[in-house]
């Protein structure tokens, strides 16, 4: 651990790593924070921060969810992404359940609620659960 830091070394570090001391080598940070309290140290840091802030203007977009989904699906043992058409049909299947349940509740209104099995049961139920890809969308 560095217990001494010359002003020149402080300036060199600011020139290399910028004005954020947390980016400097860990071994220099404690002493550097003390030196940053001096007028000379504060001026050096302020100067370096000017460039840091200018560099921060260049931002790049975050990755979109579809890219992340494709990459996760490319991993070995990852659950396969279903074709979009099939996902739409599954969505309709769930909508059918919701509509049927609501209708049953409204009409019957007592005793037990009869949940009608949807007619378009072409999609097997085993694809409707536990699919992480669907939870993202």
């Amino acid at each position, binding site marked *: 651990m560095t217990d001494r830091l010359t002003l020149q070394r402080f300036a060199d570090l600011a020139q290399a790593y910028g004005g954020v001391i947390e980016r400097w080598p860990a071994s220099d940070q404690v002493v550097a924070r003390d030196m940053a309290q001096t007028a000379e140290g504060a001026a050096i840091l302020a100067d370096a921060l000017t460039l840091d802030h200018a560099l921060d203007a*260049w931002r790049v977009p975050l990755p979109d969810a579809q890219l992340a989904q494709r990459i996760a699906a490319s991993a070995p043992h*990852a659950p396969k992404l279903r074709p979009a058409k099939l996902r739409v049909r599954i969505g309709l299947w769930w909508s059918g359940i919701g509509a049927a349940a609501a209708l049953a509740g409204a009409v019957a209104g007592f005793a037990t609620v009869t949940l009608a099995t949807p007619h378009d049961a072409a999609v097997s139920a085993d694809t409707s659960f536990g699919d992480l890809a669907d939870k993202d969308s």
Partner: protein
Amino acid sequence: MTEDDPDTGLLARIGHGDAVATRMLVAAKLPRILGLATRLLRDPVAAEDLAQEAFVRVWRNAPKWQPGRARFDTWLHTVVLNLCRDRLRRRRDAGGDALPDVADPAPDAEATMIAAQQARQVADAIAALPERQREAIVLVHYQDLSGAEAAQVLDISVDALESLLARGRRTLRAQLGPSRKGDAHD
């Protein structure tokens, strides 16, 4: 340096086919990979393609990942940097030395023309740096790697890294900084 690698546990789970760990790693690393590739390639489509290629290597290496030699994040940056270098070399060989247009700025940066213009100026200034200086600046300032980690990725000493950073920042300050009459020296 490597004993507290926070990614080791995730990699072990991925090696056992844990889909949740896979998604967690993608969520954690994809923005970093894409940020590095976008800034070095300045081509968002190529950067996305490269990110997918980098993750193929992650999946291949996760089951046999050995903690201790390097942090996973450092290794991943080395992979992405090498992939970027390959693409830039192929681009140069193909005669397409001119860099594609700067990546679209983030939506909030797009909010004002001034912010977009500033982003473009920075991107152009960094692109004009010598390759090693550009890589050093991107790794330390934008990727937040420590000096030791960035030096490891670039396969140079920390002293050499600091020299690259200082020269790069000096050039950038001359190009991006306001004309300050009292700023006569570094």
